[in-house]
């Protein structure tokens, strides 16, 4: 299935800006949102990423009006909507599990919001058909939700959310209930659709690959706060905090010794990315991406290759340092040919500023 190329005029609209200001929301003793600040530009797709319980879904539900805040403001196009009820907000939402109304056929599900707005039946039918064409399900309008696959149901949910021409599209882990192949396919379709329609979108997920591949910016949340909100490339290459660095992508934890604004790792001096708060001579764990590590086959090298995994253009080599530390290195496959298990290898690190692991 592919989405059709042209979006109907009905769903093309200028984006809307969204801003969270100091949002706080507690459930008993647990602070789901702890002073969350976030600004989303018109037409932008921002993904909120974070571990379970970090507050990302609460933030989305607050924007939808399904959750109230204890403090803070939600601004949409500069207007305060904090106290506006959900049914007056004009937000289109796609839920995690299939939320189609089981008693309505697919086209009636899509037209539901229009029906509530008093749109004439003929116009409703035409718009629903347009939306179903947009998500590639124009021939499924007469079916009922239980007659569709999970992926098809989420496409219908997307069409239903877009049918009301929402100011903002809210996606609450819409792909998590789908199998891997459908998930990837639908993820790309959502992005294409979002770009075509130009709608401001907030996407919540715990899947970092999903967030990094679909979003203009990714906000990493932790304990109700935003740790960093940046482009996927910035987030990966220049994480602002150790939490972000460890949460996004794979990291080596390599022992090192602090020396001023540097840290000595396996005989190499690396610059610290931020004031570490560690004293000179303190033992720390340094965070290093696998692609920042270079291994070269040398008889007197300090690392012992223990494993290798071919991944096409890149081969991931696992080596062990003399102190027992395991080191992962992503190397171009053409240069990794000599690094067979049992071989000795010299270790080098890319000359980039590094972060220290938390609490170590």
């Amino acid at each position, binding site marked *: 299935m592919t989405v059709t190329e042209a979006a109907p005029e009905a769903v093309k609209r200028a984006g809307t800006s969204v801003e969270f200001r100091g949002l706080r929301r507690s459930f008993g003793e647990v602070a789901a949102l702890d002073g969350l600040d976030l600004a989303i530009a018109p037409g932008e797709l921002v993904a909120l990423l974070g571990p379970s319980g970090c507050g990302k879904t609460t933030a989305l539900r607050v924007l*939808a*009006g*399904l959750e109230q805040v204890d403090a803070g403001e939600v601004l949409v196009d500069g207007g305060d909507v904090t106290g506006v*009820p*959900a*049914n*007056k*907000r*004009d*937000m*289109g*939402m796609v*839920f995690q*599990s299939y*939320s*189609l*109304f*089981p*008693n*309505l*056929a697919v086209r009636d599900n899509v037209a*539901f*919001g229009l*029906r*509530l*707005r008093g749109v004439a039946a003929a116009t409703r039918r035409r718009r629903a058909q347009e939306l179903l064409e947009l998500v590639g399900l124009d021939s499924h309008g007469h079916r*009922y939700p*239980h*007659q569709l696959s999970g992926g098809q149901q989420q496409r219908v*949910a997307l069409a*239903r*959310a877009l049918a*009301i021409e929402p100011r903002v599209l809210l996606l609450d882990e819409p792909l998590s209930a789908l199998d891997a192949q459908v998930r990837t396919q639908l993820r790309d379709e959502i992005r294409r659709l979002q770009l075509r329609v130009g709608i401001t979108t907030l996407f919540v997920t715990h899947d970092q690959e999903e967030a990094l591949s679909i979003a203009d910016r990714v906000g990493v949340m932790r304990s109700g706060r935003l740790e960093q909100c940046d482009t996927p490339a910035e987030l990966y290459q220049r994480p602002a905090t150790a939490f972000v660095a460890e949460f996004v992508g794979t990291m080596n934890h390599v022992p090192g010794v602090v020396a001023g604004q540097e840290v000595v790792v396996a005989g190499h001096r690396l610059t610290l990315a931020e004031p570490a708060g560690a004293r000179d001579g303190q033992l720390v764990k340094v965070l290093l991406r696998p692609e920042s590590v270079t291994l070269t086959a040398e008889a007197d090298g300090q690392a012992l290759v223990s494993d290798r995994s071919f991944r096409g253009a890149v081969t991931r080599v696992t080596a062990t340092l003399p102190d027992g530390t395991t080191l992962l290195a992503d190397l171009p496959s053409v240069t990794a040919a000599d690094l067979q298990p049992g071989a000795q290898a010299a270790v080098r690190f890319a000359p980039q500023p590094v972060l220290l692991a938390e609490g170590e």
Partner: protein
Amino acid sequence: MTVSNTTTRTGAAGLSAAPARPTGRRWVARAAGLLGLLPFLAYTGLFLAAPVVMVVVGAFQDNDGAFTTDNVTTAVSDQYGRAFVTSIELSALTAVVGAVLGAVLAQAVLSRRPDGVLRKAVTSASGVLANFGGVQLAFAFIATLGSIGIVTKALAAVGLDIYQGGFTLFGFTGIAIVYIYFQVPLMLIVFTPALEGMREQWREAAENLGATRWQYWRHVAGPVLLPPFLASLLLLFANSLSAFATAEALTNGIIGLVPIQIGALVSGNVVADQQNLGKALGLGMVIVVGLVMAVYYRIQRRTARWLG
């Protein structure tokens, strides 16, 4: 490649031929599978099919075993015909009132915390009260709402004499109140699973699309709950139609309900040797329930097309 024995024996021609007949071993396996059904078939045959057959056959026999339509004719005329009307009216009234009140109560209970005391208490109490019928229920009501019942006396003490106002526990209204007493908790028990099956996300999705609470109930929750509501209503109707002991104990047979008439005929209290008339009345009850079920299925087909 491994080739099965069957394919080897039949060869290529065998592959395009009609499927081989089940071998003896397959028949044994199939028969063994059906064995599991035996207890169920035996139970329903003995306690459902056989009594119905006996009722149907007996309804068309006189005391000598000869064919007759007199029993059926008598069963729909005079006092017996009126008994059917009264039974159907009473059953319909108590089923509708019980279903509505029970559904509202179930929704109210489900709005409480799942592990809360109130929810547990109401659910447990309903399990008991739904089965609290017969003589003891009649006595409980006589002791409270009878002519010298506690509640009656208490109301009279504050100037509200309900018996002076025309109320009596020992008539149609009284029986209806007593029946509703066990219909409401029964409805709560059978309808709660349907309410629990309602997804919170349907409400949120509707709200998100602009629906008010009323619009959500009208367009989504109501239609989704209608089929199980009708099924529960049917159960309550049948429950009320077949109830005997409570009405008998409360009115001593003054109100002519079909089960009471059957009881009188079978026991021979009023007229001897009229068991087959009782069977004709029983056949009438089977037909009434069958008709109600037919109407139910017709409504369900129209209201639940989406169930596929």
